[in-house]
Each structure stands twice: as structure tokens, then as C-alpha cells.
């Protein structure tokens, strides 16, 4: 970038800061957005597609959207090839191929994002607000000396965002006023990825290898192992129907009726903190402020009281059904359909009366 264009950019940035109520997201800056993507089994994750969907809101005719993929081996390149044609907004796919990115360690990843920013001078850097994005993005932001924004649910202007605070009991609009890049993680349920049409007329975006010759590793952490929970149910974060059980299930054995109902409806299984702490199910099924945030078409809560922290994770579901013995349980205040009754009687009856899933 020449000195004059740098100067011009500085002026435009300044003007942008003064123009507080700029009417639209588009700005005259010729800048790009970088999406930090994740891949699994040779494909982009659905949460990364949501990030692309969110990042495309920063696009205008003069700007571009770059997707960063890192890792090593054939599955990385397979994912890159698929990513190149998966969304019309993607201008280029950047591939960082190194053993250092074999595992999702924050230290090399944050350093990589830092390096990408030095090279690309992006206006925005976006990641999904999953455990990966939340781990890496703030570290990278600190290296770049900027404040990141967590869990964005709405992009109002190019640097003005809405995010939930206090377990979703308040919505806070924040404006980033610092220097480039503006970094954010997005709540994936708020930016549903458009379904990918394989026969889309858009040609594949170019794939570039990232030059890692200047990459210095912060080698003070090592990956040991990952323990994944095998499940035949759909993924909790993206399921259309979620069936959740709480403390009232009383045991891991009893929790199986929740799983049975989920199977019948082709639903994902969720749990409250109480159910997880009591050992009925493993923790990655926890829905709430500190667990997963879900927004399915149908959310059915059985034996869930509805604590603030649990509601935080499911309040944006389209239809909420609550079954609880206690007619005063707070869950009934957010439920569209409530049934006061014993779940051990209701669930078998539901299993009998619900139609087979389509």
C-alpha cells in the first residue's frame, strides 16, 4: 500500500468516525473482511458458513471477503476446494498448511491471525462464537491491541453491533471506535447460513497458500488428546428440534426416555446444568448461558424449572413447549405451550401419540 493511499484511508477512517449515524453498512473503504473458518472431515463447518453469512454484511462493491483455513493434510485441501465455491460472497480462500495448525491451539492460531492482519490490513475479522472462536479471537485481538466484540446477534452498521448481556436479559448495542481491524465473534443461530446449492452459477473463488516463512511459533502449549462424545442424534447447535431434560429426570437411566423421544422426532438432546452436574448426561449437552445457545423451530423442555441461565440458551427458539409438575415453574413464562404434569406419564403418552417423523 502506497503512502498516499494509506493517508487516504486514514482520512476516510477519520471521517467514518465522525459520521456517527452513517445510514448503511456500506462505506467507501476499499477493505476486506477475513473470516476465520473451521473445517472438519474435509468440509467447512456449518458454524463457519454462518460466519461467512454475517461477514457478507460488510461487503460492498469495493471490498472483498477472504476465508482463512488452517491445518494440514488432504482434508484441509479438500475443505478449501469445497469452501471456494460454497458461498457467492467468498472472494478468496487462504490456506495455511502447517503441522502447527494440526490442532486448534490458541497460541499458533492467534499468531497466524496477527500475521494475516499484517499482510492483509483487513477492516473486519470474523469468527463463529464457538469454543474455538472464543478461545482464539480475543487472544489475536490483544496481539493487535483492539477490543473484540463477543456473540454478535445483529450487525446494525459496519462497526455497530447488538449483543446480549446479562444472560440475554438485556441487549447491548456497542460501537467499535478503534483502529482496524474490528474483530467479532458471531452467534451462529442469529446468522443462519443459506443452504448451499452445488449448481450455483458462481465460479469458484481462487485458493491461495499463506506464506508462513515469517511465522514464528509460540511453542508453549501442546495438544494431548480430544475426547468426543459419539452421538446418533443431530448436532445440538443446528438441530430443528431439541428435547431437553432437567433435574426432574432423577437419573441417567431415566434420561433415556428423553433420548427415545428425541429419536422419534429426529431431535437433538439437550440438558440443564442440574442434569449435567448430577451426571445424567455429559456436559456438551448443556444448554444455557455457559453451555450451548440454541434456537430450534421446536424446543421441548421436560422437568426444567427455567432458571435465568438456562433460558439464556433457548429463549430464541421459535416454539417452546414446557412440561413440568410445578405450575409455578418460571419456564411456563416463556413457553408457548405448557403442560402441567408428570413427565414420566407425559413422555410415554407423547411417544404413543406423536406421528412418526417425516
Amino acid at each position, binding site marked *: 500500500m502506497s503512502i498516499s493511499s494509506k493517508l487516504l484511508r486514514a482520512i476516510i477512517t477519520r471521517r467514518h468516525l465522525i459520521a456517527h449515524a452513517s445510514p448503511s453498512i456500506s462505506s467507501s473503504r476499499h477493505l476486506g473482511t477475513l473470516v476465520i473458518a473451521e473445517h472438519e472431515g474435509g468440509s467447512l463447518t456449518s458454524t463457519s458458513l454462518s460466519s461467512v453469512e454475517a461477514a457478507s454484511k460488510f461487503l460492498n462493491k469495493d471490498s472483498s471477503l477472504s476465508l482463512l483455513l488452517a491445518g494440514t493434510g488432504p482434508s484441509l485441501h479438500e475443505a478449501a476446494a469445497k469452501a471456494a465455491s460454497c458461498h457467492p460472497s467468498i472472494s478468496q480462500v487462504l490456506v495455511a498448511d502447517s503441522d502447527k495448525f494440526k490442532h486448534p491451539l*490458541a*497460541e499458533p492460531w*492467534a499468531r497466524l491471525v496477527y500475521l494475516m492482519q499484517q499482510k492483509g490490513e483487513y477492516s473486519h475479522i470474523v469468527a463463529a462464537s*464457538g469454543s*474455538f472462536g*472464543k*478461545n*482464539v*479471537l*480475543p*487472544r489475536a*485481538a*490483544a496481539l493487535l491491541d483492539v*477490543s473484540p466484540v*463477543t456473540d454478535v446477534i445483529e450487525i446494525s452498521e459496519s462497526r*455497530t453491533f447488538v449483543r446480549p*448481556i*446479562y*444472560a*440475554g436479559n*438485556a*441487549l447491548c*448495542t456497542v*460501537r*467499535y*471506535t*478503534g483502529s482496524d481491524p474490528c474483530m467479532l465473534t458471531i452467534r451462529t443461530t442469529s446468522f443462519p447460513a443459506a443452504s448451499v446449492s452445488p449448481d450455483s452459477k458462481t465460479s469458484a473463488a481462487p485458493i491461495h497458500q499463506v506464506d508462513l516463512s515469517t511465522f514464528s511459533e*509460540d511453542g*508453549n*502449549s*501442546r*495438544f*494431548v488428546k*480430544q475426547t*468426543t*462424545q459419539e452421538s446418533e442424534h443431530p448436532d445440538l447447535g443446528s438441530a430443528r428440534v431439541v428435547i431437553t431434560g432437567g433435574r426432574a429426570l432423577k437419573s441417567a437411566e431415566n434420561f433415556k426416555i428423553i433420548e427415545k423421544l428425541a429419536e422419534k422426532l429426529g431431535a437433538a438432546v439437550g440438558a440443564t*446444568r442440574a442434569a449435567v*452436574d448430577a451426571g445424567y448426561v455429559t*456436559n*456438551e449437552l448443556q444448554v444455557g*448461558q*455457559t453451555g450451548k445457545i440454541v434456537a430450534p423451530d*421446536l424446543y421441548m423442555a421436560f422437568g426444567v424449572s427455567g432458571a*435465568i441461565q438456562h433460558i439464556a440458551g433457548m*429463549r430464541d427458539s421459535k*416454539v*417452546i413447549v414446557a412440561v413440568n409438575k410445578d405450575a409455578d415453574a418460571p419456564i*411456563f413464562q*416463556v413457553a*408457548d*405451550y*405448557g*403442560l*402441567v404434569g408428570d413427565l414420566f406419564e*407425559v413422555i410415554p403418552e*407423547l411417544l404413543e*401419540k*406423536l*406421528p412418526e*417423523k417425516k
Partner: protein
Amino acid sequence: MKIMVAIKRVVDYAVKIRIKSDKTGVETTNVKMSMNPFCEIALEEALKIKESGFASEVIAVSMGPAQCVDTLRTGLAMGADRAIHVDAPATLFPLSVAKLLKALVEVEKPGLLILGKQAIDDDCNQTGQMVAGLLNWPQGTFASKVVLDKEKNVATVDREVDGGLETLCLDLPAVLTADLRLNQPRYATLPNIMKAKSKAIKKMTAEELKVEMRSDMEVVQVIEPPKRKAGVIVSSVDELVDKLMNEAHVI
């Protein structure tokens, strides 16, 4: 080895918050405030490590207005040895907190810095990662199990990640952030509360720590989330199935 624990004073987790009528924020006057639950877990872990003989001292630190001293006093009553209060405005963003923490780490030189994974007011989930980045220390975020190896000078950390657990090995010094399942925080007993009154709380300022307090973030407004429309109580499973099929069309 010293352990430093960062503590935040927040609106108590059980309080139903009220939004100020001028939309500038959430009402905090005359509202019950407590230690952020994740910070309690972080402190408990530090105390456990000290009790196992790995650490010699636990230092609790907090940034914010004068009332933070109450929260630090709670930390001292739980068992922290001493505390540092950095006098600062209540509306600090994580980047500023991370810079203050980095400065404190450089003064105290702990071998471990433990934080909660997020504060339940701003729900940012950033400070631990940011201070680790600033210090160039490895980070073990969302920790549900921490095992220290004295000889190798490493921490083995189980992390709660999407889809399961991940185990990392970190060279010390390191930054850890505590998840809910790391431990069960202890209650402060009355004798310990009395003892805590005589423990030292050092007061410092950002100027003394040579941290420039600037902000690159502003709050435009805080509003209530949209209310859900009132639901109905159905009387039978048949009615529920009927409503789901013919009214909500979700099954």
C-alpha cells in the same frame, strides 16, 4: 510459586436485572452484588493448588470502583493471602482489564494466573485470552480439570470444548480460565471472615501501573430483549400434540 486470581464484582446471578429507563445500562444501585461465580471457581482452584503444596501464596486482584474491596474481602475470607485493588471506573472493557492484569503480573511475577471463563454481566469471555496474548503465555481456557506437574513445570488442562473435552499440556507460567465444572467453591466460615479483616488489600492506580486507560468501544444503548407472546397451558397430551401439529406446524 505465587498464583494470581482475577475477581470481578457483578450483579448477583439470581437477581432479575432491571434496565435503566434512559437505556444507558443496567440498574446496579441498591442491587445485590456478589463475586462473579466463575471467579469463585478460579479462586477455589488456586486455593486447592496452594493446599496441595504447589503454590506458596494466592493473590486476589480486582479492578473497579471502591466497592470491589468488599468482593476482595470475600476472596480473602475464602482463603486468599492478600489482595490488590486497582482503582478504576466500573465500565472497564476486557482489553483494559487485560492490560492492568499484565502490569500486575509483571510486578508480582506469579507462576499461574487464573480467571473465570466469563463474567455473567458482560458475558464477554475475553479477558483471560487477552492477558495471555499480551504476556505471550499459553492459555488453558474453559478448564474443567487442572493437574500440575512440579518437576516438569507444566499444567495439564482438560478443556470443555464443543463436542467434548480437549486435553492440553501448558508450560508454566500460564493463564487458566475456569469453567463451571472445575470445582465446587467453598463457603467462607465465620472465623475466616474475621481473619480476612486483618489481611492486606493494597490499593493501586492505573497510573502507578503505567497503563494507559483508553477505550475503543462505546455502549450506544441497552434495551430489553423482545418479549415472547404469552403462551397457553394445555390440559392434555392430545391437546399438545394437536397444537404442535395444527397450530404451530412444527411436527
